[in-house]
């Protein structure tokens, strides 16, 4: 478990996923993204990952494909309402999701010992299983 730190100026780590209209040019998307990220007034630059175009699992309105961008950043919670309002109004964004950043994709593997000890621990307390 991560230790909780109490800070005077609370900022939190967030993760935002944007789905842009895939019909837009890459340059336009980059520009829009920069504009939106700019609203956050970040102290340090966000980590941005472009997934690029991929097919949506279902149609969203007329869209069948989307351009996915994932952004990790640390910001004060107070900037979010305005940020989300802008996202909602932005027509090039088909959908978005802002969540607290919890873990990165492909988390580090547990070592064999850790795995074994977890096994043991879970064997001890499985009495509530059917």
């Amino acid at each position, binding site marked *: 478990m991560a230790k909780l730190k109490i800070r005077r100026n609370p900022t939190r780590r967030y993760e935002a*996923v944007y*789905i842009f209209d895939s019909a837009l040019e890459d340059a336009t998307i980059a520009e829009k993204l920069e504009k939106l990220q700019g609203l956050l007034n970040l102290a340090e630059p966000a980590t941005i990952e472009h997934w690029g175009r991929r097919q949506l699992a279902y*149609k969203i309105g007329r869209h069948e494909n989307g351009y996915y961008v994932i952004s990790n950043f640390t910001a004060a919670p107070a900037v979010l309402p305005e940020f989300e309002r802008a996202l909602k109004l932005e027509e090039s964004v088909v959908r978005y*999701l802002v969540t607290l950043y919890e873990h990165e994709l492909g988390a580090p593997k547990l070592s064999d010992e850790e*795995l074994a000890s977890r096994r043991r621990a879970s064997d001890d307390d*499985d009495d509530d299983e059917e």
Partner: protein
Amino acid sequence: MRRQKKPCPITEAGIRYVDYKDDRLLARFITDYGKILPSRLSGVDARHQRQLSKAVKKARYLALLPYVKGQTA
């Protein structure tokens, strides 16, 4: 008689946190219709099952996974 408990496939894979962006992982834990597979069938432990259900719901919102699969649109 008690059946032997299945090892949790998520723990086995060394995943500590189920990420909603990992749609290939999540896809292993949904049924043919796109429903979340019960842990009774998949053997996922309770902690990971909770993470999984949240992750699947986020992934659905982001159109990484379908809400209903196998539907002819």
